[in-house]
């Protein structure tokens, strides 16, 4: 055998040995059960799930992982049986998901709010107005060529809210002033930043980007604290009869963890740059003007009690 052939053989053998041993290590390491959460981009981009993971993993000997999707895609993936649980933010579609029989239970776990952000020079005069007026102003400035609106355009929860606001304001978004990125919240904010445009973001993702991008993020908050900009996050259990392969026990544990006293206070204590990004609201959605969830809450409270998780 020539020396080149020898090296080739040694190389192939080495690669096979490495791959085989890695596979053995991965397969026979008694790994904790893996939970797959289908979630919206904001819970990932803000770092909330990274922050909660060690607490959940330790408590339930689990391995919490997540799929980074918009709410629309997350619901789609879950309805195919490809995720164990949902943590999303579009109440309308969440309720439809439960009504269709894909899910068995929905509870509001936390909230924050949406904000309209744009360039500090604010050519559309969106600052300080209510959300509907801001949208009208942006569209008018857009039509006259002085403003751009950057939309998620990805069927996400934020995108759904944005479309509701346009509809409410009676505005058609056909025009060159309206740009659709088709991507997550953070990338969309960065596009708006580059173009000096306006966009709607959840407060958490915007704060997170402010902290990572520092002065390179020149957008500012122009419109906030409007009840139509409220952003509640729901957790949905999937129908384990319909999807027998999902880890429904671990999924229930995750839901209970999130609504337990420990989970709720962890959510409330999560800050980026000293700013709180999510507000726990389990058991009290009425306080932010949402319909009561009394029946679900009573049931979940008994479940919490029986598992000693209060």
């Amino acid at each position, binding site marked *: 055998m020539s020396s080149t052939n020898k090296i080739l053989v040694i190389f192939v053998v080495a690669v096979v040995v*490495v*791959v085989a041993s890695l596979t053995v290590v991965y397969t026979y390491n008694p790994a904790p059960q893996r939970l797959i959460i289908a979630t919206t981009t904001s819970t990932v981009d803000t770092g909330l799930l990274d922050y909660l993971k060690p607490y959940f993993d330790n408590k339930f000997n689990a391995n919490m992982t997540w*799929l980074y999707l918009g709410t629309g895609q997350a619901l789609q993936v879950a309805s195919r049986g490809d995720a164990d649980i949902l943590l999303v933010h579009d109440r309308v579609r969440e309720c439809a998901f439960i009504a269709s029989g894909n899910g068995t239970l929905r509870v509001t776990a936390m909230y924050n709010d949406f904000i309209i952000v744009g360039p500090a020079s604010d050519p559309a005069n969106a600052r300080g107005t209510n959300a509907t007026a801001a949208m009208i102003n942006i569209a008018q400035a857009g039509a006259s060529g002085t403003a751009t609106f950057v939309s998620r355009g990805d069927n996400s929860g934020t995108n759904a809210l944005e479309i509701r606001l346009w509809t409410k304001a009676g505005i058609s978004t056909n025009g060159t002033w309206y740009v659709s990125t088709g991507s*997550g919240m953070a990338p969309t904010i960065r596009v708006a930043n580059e173009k000096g445009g306006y966009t709607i973001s959840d407060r958490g993702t915007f704060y997170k980007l402010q902290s990572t991008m520092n002065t390179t993020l020149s957008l500012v908050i122009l419109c906030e604290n409007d009840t139509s900009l409220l952003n509640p996050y729901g957790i949905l259990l999937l129908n384990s009869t319909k999807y027998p392969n999902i880890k429904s026990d671990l999924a229930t544990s995750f839901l209970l963890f999130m609504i337990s006293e420990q989970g709720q206070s962890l959510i409330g204590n999560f800050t980026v740059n000293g700013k709180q990004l999510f507000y726990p609201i389990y058991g009290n959605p009425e306080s932010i003007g949402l319909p009561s969830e009394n029946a679900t809450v009573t049931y979940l409270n008994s479940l919490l009690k029986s598992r000693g998780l209060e």
Partner: protein
Amino acid sequence: MSGFEIIVEGFMRALQILFSGDQEILGITLLSLRVSLTATLLGAAFGIPIGFLVARRDFHGKSVVTTTINTLMGLPPVVVGLVVYLFLSASGPLGFLRLLYTPEAMIIAQMILTFPIVCGITISSILSLSPKLKDTLASLSAPPSWEARVLLNESKLGLITAIIAAFGAAISEVGAIMMVGGNLLGYTRALTTAIMLYTNMGEFATAIALGIILLLIAFGVNLFLTYLQMRSRIRRTT
């Protein structure tokens, strides 16, 4: 911070990560290597023999097959990812295998990308061998296994090129493994998908650092393969 400063900071971060042995990044790097090397080897295991057969045999529709394989060399990773996702999804035809969001699913998707690359380059390098060599083999009425050995040995340069190209496509690909792997932390998060995530989160320096690690890996593997290529060329010319 200017773009240039971010790149410099990313470079420093890369050095820091390389020398501190960050567990999470080490895991991501090992996963990338494991997935892409396996996909390249499997792609070669199927691509070289099939490419050899296509090049050596005369059959009806040979040009159609060759053209198809050459076209598939440019398969868009996202399309492969989407199709593999739909097949492996719990409600898809292969859902019972429970392979979605596993490294194995990533290997399958990347193998679909590497196979036509290896196969196509194998075909062209066998076809471009000197006709004199083929005539000699025919006149000696060499047994098929012997013939295959000689021809594959003579086209070694091309075969190594095929493996370099296939590995390059696999390790740098993001669309397919994002869709079928799901970018799950500590399990299916690879270098390219992690770069996308860190970029989304605005953590550009970490993203650049991972990019540098990716480049170093590609450089290391190619250095080794190129070394083999050079050696076989030197031996042939002397």
